[in-house]
């Protein structure tokens, strides 16, 4: 006799970052279908879905609605850090857990969130460490005007200064704004060695298109001289950007190769989230009320790869570059444990050179 366990889904299907939400949602739904079709499983997952439509003020009320009106205690969802921070007080109050499947800026370890994608010691810092000797230490920093962009650029500034480099400019755009002319002018005027792009959605696409146009008229701004770096761009947004993405260098735990099961790291992480959760629930008969701390304090929990202290997971450090609409692998730094506060030994020990795979 299979138990049915409700599982919340909280992804925006429209708005500035709908593509990422769609990729995560596809990964989660796919995992639900796989689990429900698996005769060995003792649980059936019943998705309970709410759509905040990219409106930041709808996340907390919809999260509360799931926890209040349905038996679901686990929610896979949220793309922006802003929305994640909005729902944490609601999760705390309602005893819920958010399974968060996108990269973020670190400095958080909520008891009510499981972090299944990379944080800065797994994306930004290895990416910069690889970039400095390859392209140089003079950077231009961009970002969307909220916590992700601010914190990524703060960390980048520290890392660049520590390496004896220079930050030539730092500029932000409101979510959804495509007013990139000023950034492009500043890049042209300062001619950096690289650009760190922590813009999201249409702002990012507009910037990449304008920068590609600049590169066509001036060779100093082509990917071989001054590449754009990103820690949040994956395959799921490449079709929106088109040829302008060519040359972009991204860090992430997964890049899609021919024949791979998932279209992007977002899809892979959300899929992995649901499978991991299902494993934990299999062994917890009272899964409706069991909180994540007790689920992790079981043999299955210890095997889950989720750190009981930080709720972070080890992620592979990969660096890849867009070529003809797909990512080509440049470096493989291997698996690295999540270190959200950068207090672990990984950040203080001498960094070893990343291994070349191509």
């Amino acid at each position, binding site marked *: 006799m299979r138990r049915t366990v409700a599982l919340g889904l909280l992804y925006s299907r429209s708005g500035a970052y709908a593509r990422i939400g769609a990729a995560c949602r596809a990964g989660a739904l796919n995992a639900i279908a796989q689990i429900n079709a698996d005769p060995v499983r003792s649980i059936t997952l019943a998705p309970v879905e709410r759509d905040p439509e990219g409106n930041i003020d709808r996340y907390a009320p919809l999260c509360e609605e799931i926890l209040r009106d349905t038996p679901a205690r686990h929610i896979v969802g949220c793309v922006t850090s802003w929305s994640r921070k909005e729902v944490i007080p609601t999760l*705390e109050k309602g005893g819920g857990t958010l399974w968060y499947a996108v990269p973020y800026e670190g*400095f958080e370890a*909520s008891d009510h969130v499981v972090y299944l994608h990379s944080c800065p010691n797994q994306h930004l810092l290895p990416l910069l460490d690889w970039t400095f000797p390859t392209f140089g230490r003079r950077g231009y920093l961009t970002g969307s005007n909220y916590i992700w962009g601010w914190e990524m650029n703060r960390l980048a500034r520290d890392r660049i200064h520590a390496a004896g480099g220079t930050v030539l400019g730092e500029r932000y755009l409101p979510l959804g704004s495509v007013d990139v002319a000023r950034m492009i002018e500043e890049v042209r005027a300062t001619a950096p060695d690289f650009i760190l792009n922590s813009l999201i959605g249409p702002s990012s696409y507009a910037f990449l298109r304008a920068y590609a146009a600049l590169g066509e008229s001036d060779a100093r701004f082509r990917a071989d001289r001054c590449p754009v770096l990103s820690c949040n761009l994956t395959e799921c947004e490449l079709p929106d950007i088109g040829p302008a993405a060519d040359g972009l260098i991204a860090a992430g735990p997964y890049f899609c190769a021919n024949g791979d099961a998932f279209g992007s790291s977002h899809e892979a992480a959300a899929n992995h989230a649901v499978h991991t959760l299902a494993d934990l629930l299999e062994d917890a008969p009272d899964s409706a009320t069991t909180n994540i701390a007790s689920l992790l304090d079981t043999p299955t929990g210890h095997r889950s790869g989720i750190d009981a202290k930080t709720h972070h997971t080890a992620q592979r450090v990969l660096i890849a570059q867009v070529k003809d609409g797909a990512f080509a692998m440049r470096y493989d730094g291997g698996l690295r444990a999540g270190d959200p*506060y950068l*207090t*672990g030994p990984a*950040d203080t020990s001498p960094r070893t050179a990343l291994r070349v795979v191509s």
Partner: protein
Amino acid sequence: MTGPVRIADLGGARAIILHRPHVVVAALTRQLQAVGLRVDAVWPELPAEALAADFIFFDADMGFDEQFPWDRGAAPMPLIALIGSEAPGRVEWALATGANAQILKPVGDSGVYSALLIARHGFEARQALAAEAADLRRRLGERQTVVRAVIQLIDTTGSEEAAYAALRAMAMEARIGLEEAAARVLSRGPVPSPRTKGGAA
């Protein structure tokens, strides 16, 4: 003490929670361990090894002066008050104890990381200001020495202005403070001045 907040060196740092066994201690311990600190909870007295702790969280509700093995307000590390009752008397006591930051009870899912950074920042700012004040006080006490040295140097330099300039030049040359240079002038005693030499004697 403005500019970027220092986030380094928290990994492996030692925190002591001075609070009776309570759910507050569990919530604080979880957050501290997630940041990467080592945590011990004690009550009612701080053990000797508390002197080596990097941070101390203390209960502002039930706390009292005798718990701390140092003079009131002279803790050698940043202190964070755990405040349940916001009664002015308890806030006053927490401040007198030397709280550099506070966390309100009940303790939930967050708050510890910012309290650590704010407490350390405030503690270091207070230490730096105290050192500066002590130095200024010392220099203030040396005013008499400087005045006496200048008076003595007038004999050889001819004017008060020139004497002061000579004293400053000596200090700069020897890379010492004006007060120390003045003390050296006085210790070697008055040099016979040309005026005295060419005088009636």
